[in-house]
């Protein structure tokens, strides 16, 4: 009893000392205890969900609401036999193969011809000092080859990313954070965005996907945040079609009465970076089907 009290006293003293040091000219935001540690964050993230749902296998978290609910899981298994996203997937495959006006193709812009690379995105581009998502990379590829960019929230981008995700099915999410202060900052920014409450309804992403996975919001069962990016893009019955990550981010914002930011704004890119990294190791299941 006394030893724990002493330990607590010592930590009190230590944190008081840190506070004092922090106030005395040292940068107030980052004391030694607060240095970015994505590896620790990812482990804590995973542990939180595996503890909360001990019966769910780690790789099943990528199935979102279907991993949370027995009855829904059965329906999902049936759905996978004849997935509603088949048409969008085929369209994506055709689009991916079709050359640009200048004769080049998407394959020329990606490693391995763009096949089986989805699990590496988002990538931190050290030259630019920013996060590059798959959607952003696809539009940059188009523009570099004289084509107009696609809308980030419409069918074409959804079909293309669906196809690329499909070629990576089963591969573990593999996001890298290079030893670059800007990459760490992007990760931290994404984390900050994820937990910050916004909109008139005062929800953060965490409010639904960390505090309430498996529970209902109106008629929908909420997905856990762990593995949530692994199923993107998703065919939603609600949308009667395939929708991109950008569409999901912007519509989540407006649903909580927050004016959405521009698709592929820094905040969204960093958010995708953070969410993907903390789901490293879980398999790519995209394109996904959702209610």
């Amino acid at each position, binding site marked *: 009893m006394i030893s724990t009290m002493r330990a607590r006293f010592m930590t009190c003293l230590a944190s008081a000392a840190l506070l004092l040091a922090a106030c005395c000219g040292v940068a107030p935001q980052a004391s030694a205890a607060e240095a970015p540690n994505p590896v620790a964050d990812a482990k*804590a993230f995973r542990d939180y969900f595996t503890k909360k749902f001990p019966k769910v296998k780690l790789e099943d978290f990528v199935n979102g609401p279907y991993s949370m609910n027995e009855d829904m899981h059965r329906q999902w298994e049936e759905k996978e036999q004849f997935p509603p996203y088949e048409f969008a997937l085929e369209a994506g495959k055709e689009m991916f193969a079709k050359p640009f006006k200048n004769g080049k193709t998407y394959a020329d812009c990606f490693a391995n011809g763009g096949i089986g690379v989805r699990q590496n995105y988002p990538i931190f581009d050290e030259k630019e000092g920013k996060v590059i998502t798959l959607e952003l990379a696809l539009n940059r590829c188009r523009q570099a080859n004289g084509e107009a960019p696609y809308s980030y929230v419409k069918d074409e981008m959804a079909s293309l990313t669906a196809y690329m995700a499909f070629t990576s099915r089963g591969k573990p999410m593999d996001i890298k954070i290079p030893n670059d202060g800007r990459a760490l900052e992007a990760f931290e920014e994404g*984390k900050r965005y994820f937990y910050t409450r*916004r*909109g008139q309804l005062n929800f*953060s992403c965490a409010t639904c996907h960390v*505090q309430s996975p498996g529970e209902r919001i109106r008629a929908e069962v909420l997905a856990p945040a762990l593995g949530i990016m692994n199923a993107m893009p998703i065919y939603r019955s609600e949308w009667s079609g395939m929708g991109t990550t950008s569409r999901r981010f912007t519509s989540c914002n407006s649903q909580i*009465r927050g*004016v959405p*930011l521009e698709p592929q704004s820094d905040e969204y890119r960093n958010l995708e970076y953070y969410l993907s990294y903390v789901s490293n190791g879980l398999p790519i299941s995209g394109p996904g089907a959702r209610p």
Partner: protein
Amino acid sequence: MSGRKHPIVPLAASMLLVASLSCAHADGSDADFKAAYAAADTAEKEAGALRNQWTTTESTLAAARKAAEAGNFEQAVALSKEAEALAKASIFQATSEKDAWKALEIR
């Protein structure tokens, strides 16, 4: 106007009296609307700089503009004031969340 006495003149005079009385009572002029809307718009722009605008603020501002266009300045002013309150609330949210977010973080 003709100098002839017209039944409508006393009516018009009393209407004018009533109108000026109600003007003095509530914020019901175009100038009042412009001032109230400008305040709301400034606050909303500040919320925009903080990347935290609410959809309801935007729709209330739109409703205020619509009311003003229809000449309902009293309503337009009321809506502008509501929009300003919403915008200020969103600013408060953004500012307090700068630290408050940590309480939600998985550690």
